């Protein structure tokens, strides 16, 4: 009997892949939660097919779920240690994620002539055909399911086979020495209303685990993830969209405002609507509107009436909302606009990630219409981002755009559940009764240039506001040329002054670095990982990652000017780089790393590109 090697790794990547109906997401979710509960950092990334009803077994129907678990995990990882391929199509599609030492688990029962053909293999040896030389664990997962559940005579075979994902999960849990108790608990919760399905899944989970144990002669590697020292606290696993929703809920509670969402479904933003719609017991009102314009307009109406108002969408929806967003700028009403970016233009790549809406968010409206823009860096960070966006919107009487992206929205990370006591208060900028006699709608706080909110129902504050230009003092309609320029300037200044309330830009990396990597939003994990790797290799490099794009942190220029080389890395053709050039002339030489493939950065390519730039004289 050959001895089994146990590889001790700092972190591991597992990729579950199969047909979109194979339940890969569930298996992946449970595995990541189990790792998280055992104290690992995790980062997950689902890869859905764009077509919902691609025929079963075809390449177009492959769906994947990647889990990166262990210490210092910042990205979902590029290459996997273990690839689970439930059918030949999955093997073919996910081949790109294999490293030479990756182990492949297949359901050998599906590697038959019919399935091979559906996956467009031309020979009967898919491994040979793809040139795959990795170790393969060929487990008969389908047969094993039928055998495990033979005694459950009431259950049709079709349903028994639906447990294949959990059978695979059981095996993977064995490979990574993950005890099953948490997985069992999650399955029970998930199928609480269907006890027989819960029972079947728990049984196959155990049998999958036992299979690993019993046949380990044929499995050469098992992995042990180095335990890390966990920090005290209560944790959960959270994806970006849910964290955004929770951030909004927290901000509503802290500001004592009711939360209102006007939205129209669009990938990858819809889950924000789904999440908030669930929580009626928190008094949240969500309206699924007739279109995005209405979503934004209803939110404006709700804001006018005194709610914390939000509208959520993706790029195409922002196009539709932009006229209404400008109304919020002109009427100076608080509004949070969430753009979960996807690949564009037009319908583009609906399920893929990009950072291509940056300039649209900053400038994509008629007239000079300054709008604060903040970006979310990780799934868990979405909570703080949403919270801060609400705080700025409410306290500065302005719409604020939150830029998330498909990667952050669907990926998940560990989130330390906060106590709201630790979050700053949010105070609506309301009129006070003593202002009544001297108040006009555009009278401003001289410090922040913020006007005062008077919501309908407040006695003695009847007034008119609207989209036409207003007189600086009286708030009446004004076509006066000089007044218009004054108002344009005040609206600009008002947004610029928000910088005083924002955290300063921080830099991570070696103190004597001469190269600065610059990023923003959802690329944080990838850039930090690259900087960490390169620093370990002795490169003098640092990272400045931006959350606030407008206004920029007030120390931005100072930081930019203290490096010899600046590399702006982003998932577009150079939008943030262009913005920085516009804001700060004659910067030290600025390089760009750009990727517009609808995918997150790939670590290997990224570090290689950075290394090349560092080498350049």
């Amino acid at each position, binding site marked *: 009997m050959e001895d089994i090697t146990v590889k001790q790794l700092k972190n591991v990547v597992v990729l579950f892949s199969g047909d979109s109906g194979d339940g890969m997401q569930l298996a992946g979710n449970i595995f990541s939660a189990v790792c998280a509960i055992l104290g690992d950092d995790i980062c997950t990334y689902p890869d859905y097919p764009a077509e919902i009803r691609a025929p079963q077994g075809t390449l177009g129907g492959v769906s994947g779920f990647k889990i990166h678990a262990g210490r210092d995990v910042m990205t979902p990882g590029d290459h996997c240690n273990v690839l689970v391929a439930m059918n030949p199509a999955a093997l073919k599609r996910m081949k790109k994620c294999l490293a030479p030492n990756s182990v492949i688990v297949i359901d050998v029962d599906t590697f038959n002539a019919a399935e091979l053909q559906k996956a467009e293999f031309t020979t009967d040896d898919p491994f040979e055909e793809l040139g795959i030389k990795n170790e393969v664990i060929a487990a008969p997962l389908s047969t094993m399911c039928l055998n495990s559940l033979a005694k459950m005579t009431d259950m049709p075979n079709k349903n028994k086979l639906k447990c294949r994902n959990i059978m695979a999960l059981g095996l993977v849990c064995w490979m990574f020495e993950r005890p099953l108790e948490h997985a069992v608990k*999650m399955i029970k919760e998930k199928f609480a209303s269907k006890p027989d399905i819960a029972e079947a899944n728990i049984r196959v989970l155990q049998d999958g685990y036992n299979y690993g144990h019993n046949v380990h002669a044929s499995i050469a590697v098992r992995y042990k993830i180095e335990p890390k020292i966990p920090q005290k606290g209560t944790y959960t696993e959270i994806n970006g969209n849910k964290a955004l929703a929770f951030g909004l809920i927290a901000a509503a509670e802290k500001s004592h405002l009711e939360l209102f969402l006007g939205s129209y479904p669009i990938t990858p933003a819809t889950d924000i609507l789904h999440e908030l719609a669930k929580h009626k017991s928190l*008094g949240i009102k969500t309206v699924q509107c007739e279109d995005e314009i209405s979503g934004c307009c209803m939110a404006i109406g709700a804001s006018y*009436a005194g709610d914390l108002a939000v509208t959520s969408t993706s790029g195409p929806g922002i196009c539709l909302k932009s006229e209404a967003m400008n109304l919020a700028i002109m009427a100076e009403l608080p509004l949070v606009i969430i753009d979960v970016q996807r690949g564009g233009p037009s319908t583009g790549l609906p399920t893929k990630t990009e950072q291509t809406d940056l300039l649209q968010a900053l400038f994509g409206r008629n007239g000079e219409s300054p709008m604060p823009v903040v970006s979310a860096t990780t799934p868990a960070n979405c909570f703080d981002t949403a919270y801060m966006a609400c705080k700025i919107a409410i306290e500065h009487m302005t719409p604020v755009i939150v830029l998330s992206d498909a990667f952050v929205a669907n990926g998940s990370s560990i989130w330390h559940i906060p106590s709201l006591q630790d979050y700053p208060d949010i105070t609506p900028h309301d009129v006070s009764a003593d202002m009544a006699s001297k108040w006009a709608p555009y009278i401003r706080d001289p410090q922040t240039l913020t006007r005062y909110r008077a919501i309908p129902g407040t006695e003695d504050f*009847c007034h008119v506001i*609207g989209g036409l230009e207003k007189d600086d003092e009286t708030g009446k309609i004004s076509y006066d040329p000089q007044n218009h320029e004054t108002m344009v300037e005040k609206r600009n200044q008002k947004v610029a002054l928000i910088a005083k309330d924002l955290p300063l830009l921080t830099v991570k990396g070696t103190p004597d670095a001469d190269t600065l990597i610059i990023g923003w939003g959802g690329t944080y994990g990838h850039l930090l990982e690259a900087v960490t790797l390169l620093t370990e290799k002795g490169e003098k490099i640092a990272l400045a990652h931006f959350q606030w794009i407008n206004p920029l942190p007030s120390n931005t220029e100072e930081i930019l000017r203290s490096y010899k080389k600046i590399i702006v890395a982003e998932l577009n053709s150079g939008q943030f780089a262009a913005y920085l050039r516009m804001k700060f002339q004659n910067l030290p030489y600025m390089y760009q790393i750009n990727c517009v493939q609808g995918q997150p950065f790939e670590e290997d390519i990224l570090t290689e590109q950075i290394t090349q730039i560092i080498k350049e004289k």
Partner: protein
Amino acid sequence: MIEDTILTAEDFSNGVKGRWCAGCGDFGIHSSLKKAMAEIGIPPSKTVVISGIGCSSRMAYHLNGYCFHTIHGRPIAIASGCKIANPDINVWTICGDGDSMAIGGNHFIHALRRNVNINIVLLNNRIYGLTKGQYSPTSERGFVSKSSPYGTVEDPFRPSELIIGASGEFFARCVATDGPGSVAALTAASKHKGTAVVEVLTNCVTFNNGSFERIYSKEAREENALYLEHGKPMLFGKNKEFGIVQHGFDLKVVKVGEGGYTLKDVLVHDAHCTDRTLHTKLSSLEGPDFPLVLGVIRDVAIPTYEEEVENQIKEISEKKNYHNFDELMKTQTTWTIE
């Protein structure tokens, strides 16, 4: 403010004079709206007026209340959000025929379908006034305007058909020059719980003068308008000598006392009838064979959207065990490291 202060039209005036062309119908409805608001008795501080863009929408600048002059086509969506957020305020929407049925058509029909309790005042002048005279979705086929110099080749909407077809439960029609008729229609719209539309026929003297000649003056209305009142027979004419009777599958105008028709044969108006057929029919009657129908044509009470939202919140709140952020967090799958 003392609750039972009697309000007057002046309380709803902000002192800013209307800037419409001399003779524009919008002056008339401005004055009727203030009177109706006074009659309704909800104080200005609880009265919200949200308008779009158009000559008609300038109304927001000439009223005392919480007034919001928004963007073209969107006031109904904004008003819906406002009302859903705060059901305690009385929300009016002022919009033109272009504003509500061209650029804002989607919001218009969906507001009606949802039945948010807002009052939509649709100022129909069958033209784009503010942009200086293009045809609108209510201009007749063949209408000659700056954008249709050889006449349009498209049919208009009948607002009533659109409204009732979109399951609108309140529809009234009035003429801008008819003060009492307008005040009555506007007041009824505000009292109705649900989306209420008042179509105001208003003459654009500058770009579409004479569009409503048949009913624009008091004398003309005496001859050509049928004022509907719930529970009253459908009589019209100078001396109420004409009546509407059912005739096979259709309606017919008869002279009461002639041709064997008596008062008993004349249809009695039922604004509360849930079936939409006759309301649709009545509101699409046109000359020369028929009178134009004015007044409250349909007024059917069903639960409003915002009531249903509040009910659901109440119901779900009772069922669920979390009512704040901390409690919500306890419902998540969590683990604690001590």
